[in-house]
């Protein structure tokens, strides 16, 4: 199917009457996800959002439930968000990260109702990348500028038009309702060419990397890797696959709520025990944890690398630490 770019805003405005529509918008000098009412607000001409798409399903700060304590007992209200949502224009790396996060929020024993309810009620329109940034390395990470995994509908930018593909049943149903025109053979060919030929940095070979890291826990490699790191955790907050969180209660008098907030393994207090013992007392142990979690522990647990190559950790590191370089060094070790 095909659609002229100048028709998008109208469709989004119409969809916003029925759904919560979330799209990248330019706000405070940054491109970030926000709920929109007017399709004109959507900004689809962007390399990637500052904060990752995970924030839509797993917000940086979220109230899980609230409670009131009285003589009669405790009244509790949980806040599961069930609103039907369309996310429009998410890059393939962020879409893929949601596929990875699904593993975390549903395990063999427990389901995270907050994440999974949003996930079930959200339709994702992915948007391919014609010009990956210099920090992008999705092609190395079982992803890619036109990877469709996780998208319900997928858009390919052909200049004046978007080539549109329905991927999941949910996506195809929505497209059927929109009554779009069919793409011409030339348009199909142009989209196929773009999708096949566009690549990001593919120089990191992850084949065998997990196994190699598995034998490297005590390797001297970790001694110096972290030395520049300030421990600011920007890399983990802006990572679309990092999912660590903290749980805290906020209360006044007899009313309170429980919130969860993003947290990060790069902070010293993250693993500090009540006894004062800290299993990861320094930067070395914390950097090792970050790299091992993504490229060894996650692989062992879920059979996938917890990195989609979005490059945010590289672009936003205040001391220019580059995870690609760390991985290249691991590969180069005997």
């Amino acid at each position, binding site marked *: 199917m095909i659609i002229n770019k100048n028709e998008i805003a109208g469709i989004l405005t119409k969809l916003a009457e029925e759904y919560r529509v979330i799209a990248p918008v330019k706000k405070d000098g940054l491109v970030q996800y926000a709920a929109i009412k007017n399709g004109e607000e959507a900004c689809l001409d962007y390399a990637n959002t500052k904060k990752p798409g995970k924030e839509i399903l797993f917000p940086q700060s979220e109230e*899980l*439930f609230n*409670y009131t*304590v009285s003589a009669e*007992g*405790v009244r*509790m209200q*949980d806040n*599961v968000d069930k609103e039907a949502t369309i996310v429009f224009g998410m890059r393939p790396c962020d879409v893929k990260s949601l596929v990875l996060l699904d593993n*975390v*929020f549903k*395990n063999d*024993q*427990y*389901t*995270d*109702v*907050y994440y*999974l*309810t949003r996930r079930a009620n959200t339709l994702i329109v992915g948007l391919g990348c014609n010009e990956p940034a210099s920090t992008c390395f999705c092609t190395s990470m079982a992803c890619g500028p036109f990877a469709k995994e996780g998208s319900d509908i997928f858009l390919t930018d052909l200049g004046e038009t978007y080539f549109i593909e329905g991927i999941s049943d949910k996506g195809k149903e929505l497209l059927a309702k929109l009554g779009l025109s069919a793409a011409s053979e030339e348009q199909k060919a142009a989209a196929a060419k773009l999708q096949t030929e566009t690549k990001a940095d593919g120089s990191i070979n992850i084949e065998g990397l997990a196994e190699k890291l598995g034998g490297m*826990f005590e390797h001297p490699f970790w001694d110096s890797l972290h030395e520049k790191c300030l421990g600011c955790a920007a890399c983990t907050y802006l990572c679309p696959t990092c*999912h*660590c*969180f*903290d*749980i*805290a*209660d906020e*209360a006044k008098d*007899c009313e*309170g709520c*429980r919130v*969860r907030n993003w*947290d990060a*393994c790069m902070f010293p207090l*993250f*693993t*500090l*025990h*009540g*006894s004062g*013992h800290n*299993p*990861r007392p320094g930067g070395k*142990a914390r950097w090792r*944890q970050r790299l*091992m*979690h993504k490229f*060894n*522990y*996650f692989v*062992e*647990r879920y059979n996938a690398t917890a990195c989609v190559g979005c490059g945010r950790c590289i672009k936003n590191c205040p001391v220019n630490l580059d995870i690609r370089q760390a991985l290249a060094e691991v590969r180069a070790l005997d």
Partner: protein
Amino acid sequence: MRNPYLPLPMKLVKNFTETSDKLIHTFTLEFLSQEDAENFKYAPGQFAEVMVYGKGEAPFGIASSPTEKGILKFSVAKVGVVSTALHMLEEGTIVGVRGPLGNSYPLEQLKGKSLTIIGGGFAFTTLRSTIQYILDPANRGDYGDLTVIYGARNPGLLLYKDELAAWDARPDINLITTIDREVEGWTGRVGFIPTVTKEVAPKSDYAIICGPPVMIKFTLPVLVECGFTPDRIIMSLENRMKCGIGMCGRCNVGSKYVCKDGPVFTKEQLDKLPNEY
């Protein structure tokens, strides 16, 4: 879809000062409904998140045994915000409980086996659960000889003093209590756990050990000397946890989450994991 983040309301029926330094209290909680009591199926070694409304929640090993119906017990040291708030609660207060969480001691697998249980200090809580479970008339016949070695810095810091006396009087448990240094009036053993374990030289099919890291470190070689192979030494880890359900990513040791895959591991399993606990 059950929401694993919602705590179950329970009533604090007893807030008991356990140790002479007053730092450890044992809390007895009662289920508010019969249905909750029946649904909360746990096994010795598991833990739960205990919530003080308005302050937050913290994970504690369950000290009671499933054979003690309708209640849960937790022995808690006063170290942080939640535990301090818990210590100050009046009997009758409603608290929240999330659980049971984590795996447990493999009591099914241990049926028919003789056991040595070794505990140090405050870590004795889940071992109390195990011992009470085994000593219950309904279960005692399922297990062989039971030796318990339990040490604290001084007699006042031993937990569950009445129960220790009751166990000591029984013929079907060999209880050895020890303290670090001589104290007037103490008639039990004196010496650190590794030394006492060496003297006792227990011969059992399995050893269960729980205590401070330094105690574990020096006792493990003694257990190996006594002939316990790594698959027959069962330990319990205590990492910092929040969610308790394998999602918040805090308590991992290698690819394992202590909250969900543990806290109970054999030495054989731990030997394959990074030494980061």
